[in-house]
């Protein structure tokens, strides 16, 4: 697969070489041949893509006909821009393998049309049957793709005598198999469990007693639970009833009582996903049932975690039930997410879950979970890959994310085929919405992305129904290319010109973390021969400022570097502050990387001018007064890791904590922090900077005070309507 599109310079600050995508790619290719199912709408496309493997498909295929290997942008506007800006395609080495086993692919091709009707049970089951030649993969696929998964009756009955397999219906067995074959992210510990559990699967006796004692039985129990849960999740899809029946049947037949207890818990999410009351009920009910209490309460925790996240809850549930069955004190491995926290201690006052209950809770996104999720099965592979790259942070920064998303969506549009009897405008809107929903699951949208989607939908709604499908798609893609070009690439260039005029000889410019546009401004000023110094202030846990400093030093711009805590001592020598932004809201509030508000505040306290560089496509009509109402929660574990060179890390290293080059060393004091019910780590991503700290906002329209933001917004919306 190729990600095709425009490249705005420095699109992602540091596409780190080992993203989870690549990691998972390795695991995947080792584990099972076809971990990724290509959704029905795209299967034919996937097939062709595979056929011309190595070739690049570009946004508008007609231009790319002759170009093999090297990708080029193809939109007319970009061509006009010439080579200097935004003409090189971002070619990503296919991060997710898309190869289907030939049989499955062929079957899919044949029955593509029917499969798009949700009721086509026969088609999907035959597809599954065809695919059953590759057992784990097919099983996986049937559980991931929601439409076919719930209907797949008996894809892989594993050898008789297995705990779960013997009696379990399709999805349950599929999930158990999938767990066994460990198609998981590098980080999830459950995968390791699964791997261990897989080999003895065949010899396991069915656990008859509620409290099995032997290791094998415990494992069987775990697997049965996992299966039940996966089945429950499958049930959230189109045909919920059948699959949940199947899962409860699986539980009953295998006599794994814990599994039955877990099944109702897993069955809850469709009714109230992410609601804490549901979690409470689940755990309360479970506590009543002696012996099963642990697993079920963990199941309840899972329900609070939201429908899409299987691993966290099930991991906690299975392992704790295993421990309980063995009669040992439950040393449950830390299960991610607020839900499991909830299940552990009744008093969890300032959990991020409570203080920030209104925000999307952080859940580590793994390939495994994405594939299992309802959305993961049906989105375009480009979107899938993009979502994973958002999740692991290899694409970050609001501009980069926006550009990457538009590229992916253009690819969705290009690969889209209107099903017969439907209109392009309506149905494509659905496909785009599904893609966006998936991306939101991976990481909440930025304002810039929201604006891009808004523009796309506006264009889509204005498509002339008389146009042919191909023409309409090309038109749409062209419009989006133009949008990117005008609102992002061109705007950036004009903005940089404006901002450079504010850099004088002898300036000491303070900047915070990494901002692409600020870097452009500084580099451009240096190219013009201005002599100035940059003070890079950096904030944990991302420490993006190091990247900023590296780039500046490479351009021979003298730098200073300090942590945010040292800002006050160094503020005196600063002559102006230049910050990037994720968004500017209509009350003048600037959303930025967490910490930028503190920087602006310190600057304002020392009477230094604060310049915020922000293109107008990141403006938004929303208003916000503090950073709590809208924010994003990051990985709390990132806080527990300190840079490997810090003194605190030295102590940890002496203690034998292994160093992770990406994240640093786990702080010795915080090792095992999840086990402490009263300790929570909170990793906020954004900051709302009050307008009073902002001297001016530099946009492509010039330099304006923050109070003028609504004016620009109004002009924007008027001009959009004029079009």
């Amino acid at each position, binding site marked *: 697969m190729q990600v095709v599109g425009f490249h705005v310079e420095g699109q992602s600050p540091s596409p780190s070489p080992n993203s989870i995508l690549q990691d998972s790619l390795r695991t995947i290719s080792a584990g099972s041949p076809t971990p990724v199912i290509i959704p029905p709408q795209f299967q034919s496309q996937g097939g062709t893509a595979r056929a011309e493997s190595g070739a690049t498909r570009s946004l508008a295929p007609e231009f790319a006909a002759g170009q093999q290997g090297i990708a080029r942008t193809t939109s007319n506007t970009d061509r006009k821009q010439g080579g200097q800006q935004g003409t090189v395609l971002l070619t990503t080495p296919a991060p997710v393998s898309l190869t289907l086993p030939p049989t499955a692919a062929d079957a899919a091709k044949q029955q593509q049309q029917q499969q798009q009707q949700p009721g086509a049970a026969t088609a999907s089951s035959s597809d599954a049957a065809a695919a059953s030649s590759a057992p784990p993969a097919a099983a996986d696929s049937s559980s991931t793709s929601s439409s076919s998964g719930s209907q797949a009756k008996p894809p892989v009955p594993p050898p008789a005598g297995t705990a779960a397999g013997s009696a379990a219906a399709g999805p349950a067995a599929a999930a158990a198999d999938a767990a066994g074959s460990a198609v998981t992210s590098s980080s999830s510990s459950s995968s390791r469990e699964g791997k261990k559990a897989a080999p003895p699967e065949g010899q396991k006796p069915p656990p008859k007693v509620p409290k099995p004692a032997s290791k094998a039985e415990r494992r069987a129990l775990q697997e049965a639970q996992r299966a039940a849960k996966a089945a429950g999740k499958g049930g959230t899809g189109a045909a919920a009833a059948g699959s949940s029946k199947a899962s409860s049947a699986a539980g009953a037949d295998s006599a794994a009582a814990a599994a039955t207890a877990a099944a109702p818990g897993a069955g809850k999410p469709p009714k109230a996903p992410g609601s804490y009351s549901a979690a409470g009920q689940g755990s309360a009910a479970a506590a009543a049932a002696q012996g099963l209490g642990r697993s079920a309460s963990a199941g309840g925790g899972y329900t609070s975690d939201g429908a899409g996240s299987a691993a966290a809850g099930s991991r906690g549930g299975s392992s704790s039930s295993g421990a309980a069955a063995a009669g040992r004190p439950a040393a449950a491995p830390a299960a991610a997410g607020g839900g499991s926290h909830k299940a552990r201690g009744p008093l969890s006052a300032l959990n991020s879950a409570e203080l920030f209950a209104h925000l999307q809770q952080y859940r580590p996104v793994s390939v495994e979970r994405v594939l299992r999720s309802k959305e993961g099965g049906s989105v375009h592979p480009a979107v899938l890959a993009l979502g994973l790259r958002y999740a692991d942070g290899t694409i970050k920064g609001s501009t980069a994310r926006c550009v990457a998303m538009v590229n992916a969506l253009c690819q969705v549009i290009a690969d889209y085929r209107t099903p017969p009897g439907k209109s392009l405008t309506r149905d494509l809107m659905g496909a785009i919405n599904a893609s966006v929903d998936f991306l939101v699951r991976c990481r909440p949208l930025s304002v810039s992305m929201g604006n891009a989607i808004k523009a796309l939908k506006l264009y889509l709604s204005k498509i002339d129904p008389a146009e042919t499908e191909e023409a309409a798609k090309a038109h749409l893609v062209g419009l989006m290319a133009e949008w990117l070009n005008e609102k992002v690439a061109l705007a950036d260039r004009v903005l940089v010109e404006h901002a450079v005029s504010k850099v004088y000889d002898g300036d000491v410019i303070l900047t915070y973390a990494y901002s692409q546009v600020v870097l452009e401004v500084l580099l451009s000023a240096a190219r013009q021969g201005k002599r100035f110094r940059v003070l890079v202030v950096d904030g944990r846990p991302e420490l993006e400022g190091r990247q900023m400093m590296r780039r500046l030093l490479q351009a021979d711009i003298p730098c200073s570097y300090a*942590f945010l805590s040292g*800002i006050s001592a160094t503020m005196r020598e600063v002559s102006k502050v230049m910050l990037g932004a994720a968004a500017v809201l209509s009350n003048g509030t600037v959303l930025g990387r967490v*910490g930028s508000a503190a920087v602006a505040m310190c600057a304002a306290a020392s009477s230094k001018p604060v310049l915020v560089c922000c293109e107008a496509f990141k403006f938004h009509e929303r208003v916000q007064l503090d950073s709590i109402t809208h924010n994003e929660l990051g990985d709390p574990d990132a806080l527990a890791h300190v840079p490997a060179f810090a003194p*605190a890390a030295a102590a940890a290293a002496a203690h034998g904590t292994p160093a992770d080059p990406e994240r640093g060393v786990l702080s010795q004091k915080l090792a095992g922090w999840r086990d402490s019910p009263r300790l929570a780590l909170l990793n906020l991503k954004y900051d709302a900077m009050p307008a009073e700290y902002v001297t001016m906002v530099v946009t492509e329209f010039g330099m304006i005070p923050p109070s003028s933001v609504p004016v620009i917004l109004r002009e924007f919306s008027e001009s959009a309507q004029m079009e």
Partner: protein
Amino acid sequence: MNLSNLVEEYCTQLRRRQIKGSFACAKKTAEVMRLLITTQRHPDAASLIEDVRTVGTKLQAAKPVELGIGNIVRRVLHMIREEQQQEQLEASEGSSTPGDASKGPQGPGLLSQAFRPGSNLRAFNRAVSLSNLLDTPAMSADGLSSSFSGILTAAADAVAAAAAGDAQAADAEGMRRQQSSRKGRAPPQWSSKNNVIEMLNELLDELDGIEQQIAQQAVEHIHANEVILTYGMSDTTFLFLKEASRKREFQVVVAEAAPRFDGHTMARQLADAKVQTTLIADSAVFAMMARANKVLVGAHAVLANGGVIAPAGVHMVALAAKRHSIPFVVLVGLHKLSPLFPHDPDVTLNDFQSPGQVVDFDVLAESFMRGDEQQPGPDAAAAECLSVEVHNPAYDYIPPHLISLFVTDTGGYTPAYVYRLLAEYYSREDYSLDKELIDRMKL
């Protein structure tokens, strides 16, 4: 005598930063002072003051940023001076009628006496200022001499002796002459020295009890279900919160205080002490301030204007608290009260630490190497490029207008009251310990 060795060793430890924290430094200084006073022979107060000041200056010079050392030295000096004055007063009482002494030269009903009943001897203690100039028409010569510090010490002594007019002073004078003429016979001890030693022991006990004293007030300051924000690790703050948690349910948000990350320690200890704790990055302080009710931090030193020297990053916290109108409370033992004024505090009262804590040297090396490979620019540019600065300050200065309250071992005070505390604990003559500076001023 191994006193000088001990002082040397302590100085070396200070220079090498082997003693961490202002409390440890204060304690150690007090111990050295006690040793100095108990082991050396001093014929009178003046010689003792001279000795203490010499050693104290030396200690302070070993680590100028550790203001606690100077504070303790000043406290000791103040004790000696008080004792000296007490002695003089008693002597004058002995010579004149007892009833006269209380009415004395000042006369009743004056402001200073109205506010400080029964301690008219303190009037001697205070330098001439607008507030007491009119109160003390018969200001003692001693006070004048020290405040103007233009009169020769010998003359002052003579006047003081004349004013006191008793045998003991004359005796001391005689002894000093003996000492100066280097007689082999050991001079007798200053008679009130034991009182000073007793007070010094009290001071040491007081130091040990400071954290408890502060913690005891916790319940008065924390109410139920509060969200308290703190920054980094402070033993005082930890004990304060722990004490409060015995009676109240509340939550603490701890900022981690990079690059030292002692917030991690704080968070872990608080959680272990059964306080609901949330750890955040320093950068999230502004965001979290919207949810906080109160900010509690420890400090490194309190300055004469009511400002505070605190770990780097606290200024940002204080500004955020001010912006959100949240009380910013500084928990501080009075051994940290310093009579210095902040002049250029970001530099003069700061300690810049190893840049290795902040940035990986490899990162720097990498950027330089790449820059060279790509485009070997002109030499001047390359040289300039090499001048990358990495700041790692240890302290911040927080101006008094950002501080709502000091909670000290003797109670709560506002920054505006700090000047008054200074007068209570230190003598004005000792505000500057630097002997050379004083000498220069005299000349």
